[in-house]
């Protein structure tokens, strides 16, 4: 029974990784670059949610309190986090993607947005550290510790809600990619950007949309993280994102459904390896798997082979 409990916990943890992994995979699939602002956005959303809920914003706390009251400050937190992250994503787009095309087009050209995104990671981490300090910040969950159990296996209600919510968001995203005009344009860019431009896709207007979508995915994930795990700090994004990267690679770069399955699987693998071999060893199975996978089957379980081969 204990092992099933662990599997359930792993699934819930995987729910956090799923959205971050999907955010990574979208940017890699569309734009062929490893976006290190994703951990920053995840962490920033989580901290903003904490700060709004607990009244620790640098300004505007009284306004939020008078409009929403103590009872519904979590609603304000969600709004603040989503709006701020969407705006920030547009700024990031302006300074990373736009400079992707190197003048000389040499082998390290894909490093340019990587470096800019690392710059943003440094900015946000230190923004949070200098505003809220580097100690862990503890929020009180607005929903308490609601649990129910089926035959001795305990389920936490907020965690189940978030798992379902993250799956719903991702399913909506993949329907959007399949069925809408925007989705078609996005897939065209992912397939071959130059041809997409020739076919009349306005790449420079679509790319900001990709950034906002991934930013919002991170934001939702960060918000749910604060509600579920209650403790956030400036470096929470790094930990979550590195594991999410492993999930993404497992599912195959650029594959949304692969990222979902990969994220859930990595969550379970992490919890199971902590349970079986202890917390010190927990890193090894994840990274060992990732290394072996990258070397022997870099396309992952369901990836396609276009990524990293002369895009843009």
């Amino acid at each position, binding site marked *: 029974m204990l092992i099933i409990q662990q599997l359930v916990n792993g699934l819930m943890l995987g729910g956090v990784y799923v959205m971050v992994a999907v955010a990574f995979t979208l940017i890699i699939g569309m734009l062929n670059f490893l976006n290190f602002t994703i951990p920053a956005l995840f962490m920033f959303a989580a901290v903003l949610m904490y700060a709004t809920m607990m009244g620790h914003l640098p300004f505007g706390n009284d306004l939020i309190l008078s409009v929403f009251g103590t009872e519904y400050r979590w609603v304000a937190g969600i709004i603040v986090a989503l709006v701020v992250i969407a705006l920030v994503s547009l700024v990031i787009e302006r300074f990373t993607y736009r400079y992707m095309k190197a003048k000389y087009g040499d*082998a390290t050209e894909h490093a340019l947005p990587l470096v800019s995104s*690392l710059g*943003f990671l440094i900015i946000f981490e230190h923004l949070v550290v*200098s505003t809220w300090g580097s100690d862990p910040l503890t929020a009180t969950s607005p929903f308490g510790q609601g649990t129910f159990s089926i035959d001795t296996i305990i389920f936490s209600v907020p965690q189940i809600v978030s798992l379902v919510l993250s799956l719903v968001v991702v399913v909506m995203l993949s329907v959007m990619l399949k069925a809408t005009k925007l989705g078609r344009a996005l897939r065209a860019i992912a397939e071959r950007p130059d041809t997409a431009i020739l076919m009349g896709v306005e790449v420079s207007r679509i790319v900001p949309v990709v950034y906002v979508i991934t930013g919002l995915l991170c934001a939702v994930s960060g918000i749910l993280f604060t509600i579920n795990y209650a403790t956030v700090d400036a470096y929470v994004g790094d930990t979550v994102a590195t594991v999410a990267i492993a999930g993404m690679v497992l599912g195959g770069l650029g594959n949304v459904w692969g990222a979902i399955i990969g994220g859930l699987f990595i969550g379970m693998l992490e919890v199971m390896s902590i349970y079986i071999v202890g917390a010190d060893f927990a890193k090894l199975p994840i990274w060992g798997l990732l290394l072996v996978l990258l070397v022997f089957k870099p396309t992952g379980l369901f990836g396609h082979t276009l990524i990293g081969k002369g895009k843009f």
Partner: protein
Amino acid sequence: MSGYIEAQLIILCLSIIYAYGIFLPAASGQLNLGAAGFITLGAYASAWFNASTGAELPMWLSIPLAMIFTGIIAFAISFPILRTRGVYMVLATFAFAEVVSGVAINLEFVGGAAGFPVDDHADVTVIVPVTIAVILFSFYFMSTRLGLSLRSIHDDESVATLFGVNVRTSKVVAFTVGAMLMSLGGSLYGHHYNYIEAQTFNVLLSIYILLYVLMGGTQTAWGPLIGATFFAVVPEALREIAESAGLKWLAEGRFILFGVFIVLLMVFRSEGVMTRTLQDRLGGGLFRRKKPIADDMAGGS
């Protein structure tokens, strides 16, 4: 020399050594985000060769042995890792570093998660000359035929292959030698602070070292030197200035400003601070390269 300046100098020297280790593969366009892994290997190997619980060798022997040890491992993994490219190479080296740190934490004979004390002490009179030697070696390395091959691979791999450059050999050598340099830096770190912990060598360290190199520029051997110096000096200088001007918020938030620097540098100077063109312009007669024809065409000058 005051203690503060000396401490900063040591950090600068170690950063420079690490940066050259990442630079050599980066000079051929291979992005290595696994610096922490090789540094861990070097630090632990040298500490173990030196320790009374290990091989009990003197420091001047344990550091080269650690370099050879790291070199062998780097050589062995370079073949599978160099099969990957671009984003995949970044991810693979990153995963390698995580595996190394995961293993180091769990090896009880090198202290495990509690860390490992290192016996012999290397002070500034050892580290500075070694750093200068590393810098000179890197400049020499880039001026050899192999260095030229690396540059040609960096600029265009398929054309380099067409001209008969042995791409795989060049990449493997650059990767292995780079790993050995990082191992040297790691050993010196261990011998200077006399205590190592696998947790010190984390993802953030790898990221910063890669940033030193990419910001300095991968085209010339000046790049890592400039990048590492910039990273070590600017935040400290900002802190000094902010504190003397009484701006507490700036002293605390100097890294925010620093992040802005990085983003802006990529906007205005995306090949890094030091490029071949700039080197020519600054160097005058002293460092002038013999101008290859291809450069005139690419530079458009």
